């Protein structure tokens, strides 16, 4: 696909690298206690997020999940506010109020990474409805997992998008598991894509480890959406390397050799090989990797140097106007 490596190809690789490095760092400092709460990593799924988001325009919308680090980076978010968020700092993208499950950067069109499984799907349908009513041609893309397709919210959001022919793209990142539950034990169809039939919605199944393939599939869906053809379900077959969340003290599910099998098709390794094959110099890619490593280091430094929010900030952003602070916190 990438016969002539262009800026776009390199950008895909860069974004995948950013996600990988960002999370490697996050996992390490989480283990060291520097990040509180749970950390759900995206490692293994980078091609899915980047391939999908690269098919979008900057002003298109995107909604994600609890596994929230990859999506905004794929959509183009800067790393500093994301890392600061993980550390609970006031310079964080959510001012320290959201944390690891909510790394949503509205400035790049990311309208929420929500930690309630399935809950982003109606929201994405609504953003698409907004575009339709405003008569603009922005589309809304929603990521969710295989497990999420069992939720009522999935059904209702898909149905609404279909019946109203909304400019929406539903990307199911089928990584085979919901926490410890294999998709085969929770989803009665072999391919999630089958579920689109309930809405007379077109569906595409794609290799989620191949960033170009994902881009192509989502591009087709985006074009349909942008030109009034309604929504599409795209299923990316992918895999997460880590347990449901990292550093949990014990492994929830031992998937044995399966993980190693999938690692053989690591999206970054695959794409690096493709770029090399297409004539990109190894030095270019190595330099890029170093740049990304530096970016991540810089983001961490920024996060560490940043202040924590003040107690009063807890009362801001409930409503547009700040709430009064209770006596016991001011006394």
């Amino acid at each position: 696909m990438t016969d002539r490596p262009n800026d776009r190809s390199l950008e895909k690789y860069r974004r995948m690298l950013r996600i990988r490095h960002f999370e490697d760092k996050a996992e390490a400092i989480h283990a060291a206690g520097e990040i509180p709460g749970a950390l759900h990593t995206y490692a293994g799924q980078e091609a899915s997020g980047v391939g999908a988001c690269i098919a979008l325009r900057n002003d298109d919308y995107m909604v994600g999940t609890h596994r929230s680090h990859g999506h905004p980076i794929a959509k183009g978010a800067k790393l500093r506010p994301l890392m600061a968020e993980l550390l609970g700092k006031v310079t964080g993208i959510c001012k320290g109020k959201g944390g690891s499950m909510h790394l949503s950067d509205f400035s790049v069109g990311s309208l929420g990474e929500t930690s309630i499984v399935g809950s982003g799907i109606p929201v994405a349908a609504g953003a698409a409805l907004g575009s339709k009513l405003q008569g603009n041609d922005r589309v809304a893309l929603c990521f969710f997992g295989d497990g999420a397709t069992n939720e009522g919210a999935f059904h209702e959001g898909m149905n609404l998008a279909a019946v109203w022919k909304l400019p929406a793209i539903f990307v199911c990142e089928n990584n085979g598991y919901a926490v410890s539950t294999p998709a085969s034990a929770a989803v009665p169809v072999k391919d999630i894509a089958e579920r689109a039939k309930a809405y007379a919605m077109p569906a595409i199944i794609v290799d989620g480890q191949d960033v170009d393939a994902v881009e192509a599939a989502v591009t087709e869906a985006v074009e349909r959406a942008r030109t009034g053809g309604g929504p599409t379900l795209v299923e990316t077959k992918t895999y997460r390397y880590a347990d449901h969340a990292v550093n949990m003290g014990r492994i929830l599910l031992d998937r044995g050799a399966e993980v190693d099998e999938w690692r053989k098709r690591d999206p970054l390794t695959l794409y690096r090989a493709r770029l090399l094959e297409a004539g990109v110099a190894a030095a270019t890619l190595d330099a890029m990797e170093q740049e990304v490593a530096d970016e991540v280091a810089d983001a961490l430094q920024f996060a560490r140097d940043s202040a924590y929010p003040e107690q009063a900030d807890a009362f801001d952003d409930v409503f547009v106007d700040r709430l009064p602070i209770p006596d016991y916190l001011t006394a």
Partner: protein
Amino acid sequence: MTKATYLEAIRQAQHEEMSRDPRVFIMGEDIICNVFGTTTGFVEAFGTERVRDTPISENGFIGAAAGASMVGMRPIVDATIASFLYPAMDQIMSIIAKSRYIYGGQARLPLVIRTCLFYGNSNAAQHSDRPYSMFMNVPGLKIMVPSNAYDMKGMLKAAIRDDDPVLCFEDSTCWTSKSDMPDDPDFMIPLGKGDIKREGTDISVIAVAGAVPLALKAAEVLAKEGISIEVVDPRSLVPLDKALILKSVRKTGRAITVDPAHQTCSAASEISALIVEQAFDALRGPVLRVATADTHLPFSPAIEKALYPTVDRIVTAARTLVGTARPVSA
């Protein structure tokens, strides 16, 4: 100034705001056929893009309202009957109430969810819920419970222009009551401002939604007995006009809270707790609650009606409080 009913006030508020602001649109089940009369003529005026019938999927379309609001629209959702909010609870509680916060203020969700408190008419337990207090327990949702047409119009217009999500609970027992309506197209009553519906000196009766007209009737009965009732209508429960309630209770020294909802963990309970916490020194007697009995609402009219607050129950509570309890007149 022309008279309009509570339902007509809803229609007018929506119509005026939709005319004024193209970002406002309305959706819900069967609103084109317009079951209760709050969208009469809307399709003709605004077209089917802005007046949308939805599939029966409350979580889906209420969530879609959230998404649309995040990208600059100002949706009004007609969720028909309050019991139908339960299927949408996930979007209301986890998305609508919390999105602005968890994203650190990046999101605004200017939307209104309208729903009716449909009780007292033999619709049985699954259709008779009055669940506003459960939304009060979660931050992030403004809640209005107007008791007359005037307040409804002014507050609903304010709600539609508000940049935060608002739940509008419409008491079906008030549907046909009428008020004079101001002509001002910018007539608005801000959320968070209560109203003294009647001044008095002996007892503050803080009443919610359809309980306000009952309190006013009780006040008339009691006036004849020389008991002077101040009727306080908070009008919105979030924000709650605590200052107005406390000022009234400090003046009268006695309080009754009246609420058509089930008593336990009701708005009435919250207001009682507020009073005893912050105006204890002024209290001359207990704070009594007149709310719906903590049982389900049965279909049979023979046994449904007496479960709700009534004028008699308010009168009895007031008499008890001033120490003049007498047999309740029939």
